[in-house]
């Protein structure tokens, strides 16, 4: 029976690692998405340039390659990251780059009349963004953002390639040691499903809060 509890611990331990990577990388992704997404709505080429290159780089290469780079190649130029830090930075930058487009699109989708009304009320550019454009864009961002957080969760097994003992890796280890393929695979199936359900639930709650007033009628109101 002690062996069973050992295996249960491995699964729990792996789950905890997966949760940690998902949560921290999601925070990184949100920061990346917001910074690059907002910057890319600028009318100034030089402000758009850096973020655009960053986003295209991370969307144009695979997450797998990026993890290898962050963990095995960066030390050659003097940057050594722990596996955890490399994992959250790469997953965050990768998913954040997709999120960047979500942010940019949502901001661009706020009707022009909203900006004009806030100009007419003499809001500064920052006030327009903070009080008028962003709260409305956020509502449009949340559903695709929820999908991206779930995508991020599903990318976490890749981090075992740079020595993270996440849920998938540990479950495979349990499978090898016990030989019970079905139970190990069923465990990860249920595990990821529960975690992604939790994300969907949380996003749903935030969505309901953020969309007060916006549920009915056209957005232009």
């Amino acid at each position, binding site marked *: 029976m002690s062996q069973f509890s050992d295996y249960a611990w491995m699964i729990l331990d792996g789950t905890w690692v997966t949760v940690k990577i998902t949560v921290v990388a999601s925070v990184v992704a949100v920061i990346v998405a917001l910074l690059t997404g907002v910057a890319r709505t600028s009318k100034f080429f030089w402000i758009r340039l850096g973020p655009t290159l960053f986003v295209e780089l991370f969307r144009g290469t695979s997450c797998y390659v990026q993890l290898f780079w962050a963990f095995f190649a960066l030390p050659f130029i003097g940057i050594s990251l722990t596996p955890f830090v490399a994992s959250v930075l790469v997953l965050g930058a990768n998913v954040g780059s997709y999120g960047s487009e979500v942010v940019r699109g949502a901001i661009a989708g706020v009707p022009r009349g909203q900006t004009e009304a806030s*100009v007419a009320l*003499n*809001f500064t550019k920052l*006030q327009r963004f903070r009080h008028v454009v962003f709260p*409305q864009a956020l509502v449009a961002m949340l559903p695709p953002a929820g999908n991206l957080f779930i995508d991020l969760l599903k990318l976490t097994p890749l981090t075992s390639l740079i020595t993270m003992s996440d849920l998938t890796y540990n479950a495979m280890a349990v499978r090898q040691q016990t030989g019970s393929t079905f139970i190990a695979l069923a465990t990860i199936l249920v595990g990821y499903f529960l975690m992604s359900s939790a994300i969907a639930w949380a996003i749903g709650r935030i969505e309901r809060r953020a969309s*007060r*007033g916006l549920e009915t009628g056209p957005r232009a*109101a």
Partner: protein
Amino acid sequence: MSDRQLAVEFRGVSKLYGALAVLKELSLSVPQGEKIALIGPSGSGKTTVLRILMTLETIQAGTVWVKGEPLWHMPKGDGLAPATETHLHAMRRHIGMVFQHFNLFPHMTVQENVARPPQIVLGVTSGEAEQRAQDLLRLVGLAQKGASYPAQLSGGQKQRVAIARALAMQPAIMLFDEPTSALDPELVEEVLAVLRDIALEGKTTMLLVTHEMSFAREISDRILFLDGGAIVEEGPPDQIFSDPKEERTRLFLKKIIAAGHRID
């Protein structure tokens, strides 16, 4: 020059979209407190006049003066330099605008739409802003709707909230861009009633772009008839509507009447 008494002045203002001239060296003066109605066919440039004043459109030639100060320019040496955002920000406090499509903030309640801007922009305390918002909502007949969201209101109610929101900033000059054009016919009068109150109160300079000819005739001190980006004719309402001097004005009014609108 008695610039100080002028709320608004355009001197030879041209507005171009590429090769298309929307305003052609347009000049006009509006003394403080005057109520002006701009009428004319669509594409005549009347809305553009308001949008330039609200700094929503730039100009390509001429100067615009608001309360004796250049709007799109700043004094520099002996001449004028293009205005900075800081200058535009300082000038905008004189002006408020009501839009054809209301442009209420859908994520804010009616009360917040009216109370938040003075807090954000003018630094008014929340107690004072809330109180003033309630007073203004009462003025436009919507004291009971403070907790509603814009999406729950009729078009006429939305426009009255938009008027209250603009008034909350206490601008000396109010611009109304076809405020009843997007409304169902039965909702027009409730908005006109509010506009009438503001006009009668007297202090505020009003520039009104409208197709409601009898209303324009009733509340305005002067009518400007625009066509093709220029003022074709201007004068007191009775003269413009009863005895227009220009052929183009006559034709326009004929069309309006033919379309079933009253001008008396």
